[in-house]
């Protein structure tokens, strides 16, 4: 202890003491990247249990892997936004409904109102952004718990989607004529890089990388973690708590509507019932990714790994023709296992 103290005057404080580094270092790293190790484990298990055809492992075929990631992309985009919300100690139950609203909006605007690609997408994204921001206002300025606010938001977004679509799914046909969506929109559902990588995957990747970088380098992210860690202390320290909260819910709403656009293009329709229950899958991905529901602790990288883990699991169970009800059981157990591992994390 004395030598630690003595170090301060030399200004060598920054140099980590070897002792301090080794103590709990390995365990801490293991826990920090828990979801990544989990993902690797599930991936290896998937290879082992994969059905084979002519000696080829079906799971690792390029086509199948592309499918896995494509299937994950919507939940993944939502889960990135959900991570932000959970990091400030909140929750957003409205994301599935906002996805539905955005899917309906894309379809209606382009097919029924004959809007162009860009204005439609911009408006739909703006709707998600504003919807999220309003929820942020309700929770940050009025002080209603985000669970309640977004539970109400879920109903409202779902209601709006039904009104806008007339209660029916709106099919998207492409072409230049009336009642047809611009073909440029269809491109979002295509594949690129030699027909290998689906565009939704690229969108997901861009969102995830942007979020990781943002949380790493921005001053805003420090504020965000501080608000989640101890809101009162953050406020007294001069952190703009209200602004942080509104911004975070706005980001989450924006990403949910982006996922809605991706959803519409993949299904060639926008239905007011799209995205039901997606909020729970997103929360599951965040939890598996090691982000604390109490706020202030967690990462987007973990969430991405969590989303991929769920995707691989879904895929391998489907490849083996496991009954979908059993699939639900297995997913539930995985979530509990991930949360249980979190409890073992060494803390002070």
């Amino acid at each position, binding site marked *: 202890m004395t030598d630690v103290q003595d170090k301060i005057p030399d200004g060598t404080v920054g140099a980590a003491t070897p002792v301090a580094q080794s103590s709990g270092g390995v365990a801490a790293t293991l826990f920090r990247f828990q979801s990544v190790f989990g993902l690797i484990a599930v991936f290896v298990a998937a290879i082992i249990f994969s059905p084979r055809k002519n000696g080829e492992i079906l799971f690792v075929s390029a086509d199948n892997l592309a499918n896995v990631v494509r299937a994950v992309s919507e939940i993944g985009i939502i889960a990135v936004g959900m991570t932000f919300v959970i990091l400030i100690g909140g929750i957003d139950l409205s994301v599935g409904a906002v996805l539905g609203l955005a899917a309906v909006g894309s379809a209606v605007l382009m097919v029924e109102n004959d809007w162009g690609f860009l204005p439609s997408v911009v408006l739909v994204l703006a709707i998600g952004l504003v919807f999220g921001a309003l929820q942020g206002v309700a929770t940050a300025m009025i002080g209603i718990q985000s669970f309640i606010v977004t539970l109400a938001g879920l109903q409202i977004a779902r209601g709006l989607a039904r009104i806008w679509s007339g209660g029916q799914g709106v099919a998207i046909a492409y072409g230049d004529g009336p009642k047809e969506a611009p073909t440029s929109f269809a491109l979002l559902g295509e594949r690129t890089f030699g027909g290998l990588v689906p565009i939704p995957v690229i969108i997901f990747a861009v969102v995830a990388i942007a979020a990781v970088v943002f949380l790493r380098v921005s001053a805003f992210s*420090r*504020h965000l973690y501080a608000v989640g860690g101890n809101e009162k202390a953050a406020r007294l320290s001069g952190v703009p708590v209200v602004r942080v909260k509104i911004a975070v819910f706005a980001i989450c709403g924006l990403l949910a509507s982006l996922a809605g656009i991706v959803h519409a293009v993949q299904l060639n329709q926008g239905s007011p019932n799209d995205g039901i229950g997606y909020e729970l899958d997103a929360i599951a991905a965040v939890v598996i990714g090691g982000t604390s529901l109490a706020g202030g602790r967690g990462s987007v990288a973990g969430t991405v790994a969590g989303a991929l883990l769920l995707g691989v699991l879904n895929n391998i169970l489907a490849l083996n023709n496991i009954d979908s009800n059993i699939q639900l059981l297995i997913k539930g157990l995985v979530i509990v296992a991930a949360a249980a591992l979190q409890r073992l994390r060494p803390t*002070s």
Partner: protein
Amino acid sequence: MADLVRMAAIGKRYGGVQACHEVDFVLGAGEVHALLGENGAGKSTLMKILSGDVTEYAGSIAINGTPVRFSGPTDAQAAGIAMIHQELDLVPGLSVADNIFLGRELRTTLRTVDRRRMEREARELLDRSGVSLDPRRPVGELRVGEQQLVTIAKAISLDARVLIMDEPTSALTSSEVERLFDVIRELRSSGVGIVYISHRMEEIAKVADRATVLRNGKIVTSFDPRKLSTAEVVQAMVGRPVQTMFTTPDTDTGDELLRVENLSLKARRPRPGRRDPDGISLTVRSGEIVGLAGLLGAGRTELLETLYGVAPGGTRTGRVLLQGKPIRPRGPRQALAHGIGFVPEDRRASGLVLFHSILANTVVSSLPSYGRLGVIARRMERTASVRMADRLRLKFGRLQDEVGTLSGGNQQKVVFGRMLLTEPKLLLLDEPTRGVDVGAKAEIYRLLGELAAQGLGVLLASSELPELVGVCDRVVVLRDGRDVASFSTADSGEGDLLAAAMGQGEVFEEAFDGSGGAQ
């Protein structure tokens, strides 16, 4: 005396800090054993190990000669060891009786909760501790001191053989302290071994049979508390002679920095127990340390909160001028932008994110200054943080360590450092040395002197009279939300402050919350 507890070669490490190192500790039956040391000396850790709160440690424990290794607090309780924590572990919504019998509720023959019997027994227990409290009252309504007495009653009700008290008197009035000592003496004569952790030398001299001093996780000395002077004990605790605790800064005070004129706040929703400013006037010059004295509930905290812009909403009248310009901060951001910093009273609840790093906690108020366009330059924030740690003589392992692993005094330094990084002109301090050990206290006083010498103005609210007299140039006394007197510390003493704070016809012992004061 038979050895009730024998702890041998106890070791425990948190991150880069060795909290306990080869500690041998013996407690006899019917013995009151005081444990002293600065915060972070390892007292709490040692006792958490004994009470089963900490289960991973080196060394061995024997109770009545039988080796034990507890798997948790319940395990230790079953072995007759009860701990009264510094942090009160009570459920605010439940009644006093419910709290006392939490987890071992008394049942009727029908297995339903026997509320009447619980209330009766709780009343008896409280009577035994000399407290008149209605056992049906929710704990959340009680004063902190009363809550402390409830936890003590609860611990006694466990019929423990070993009772650990971690600063049990920190919020008690002096008459409550006396009653607690009666209880302790009674327990002692019935053979209970008591570990008594405290910073207050006079209490230890009164109640303890033996005292052990810990420093940096090691035992320094063990002695008979009636035979050693306070100065000698303090020297053992800090490892160096404490000549002058207070370095009264003889700096020339400069121009007027803060002027508060007839400031009042009428809260829209008045809260019980709050005393909002009701016509306060005072000034702070740059380079001046002005103390805020007053009894509990005199409105010291409320004044600081109003100046920092965090008081509850309401109508504010009067004026606040900073360097001659009227200001009205509507929140911490505006206050900080004006150059006003604030160190709140409860660093754990309102100061720090305990599980975030020292670095993150230090720079959070000054983030925009490290880098451009909202992007943080890590090197810059690191340099700033290291510089601050150096300046504050922070005792720590690595900047990445969780701030919660630091001792109380060092945690407080982090809150200080965060504010200093915003380069304030005026610092508002609310009980900055509460729960801080002697050594860290002296360092905080030294720092205040330095800051004043650099021209900073300080407004220091404190319950400790020696601190106010020793550190401040001037002390303003508040009573019922008004400033009732102002003294220069050059020609006034603690008695003057106390008399002004109490006004007339008040009970002496209720004053200043029984806080003992710095040695």
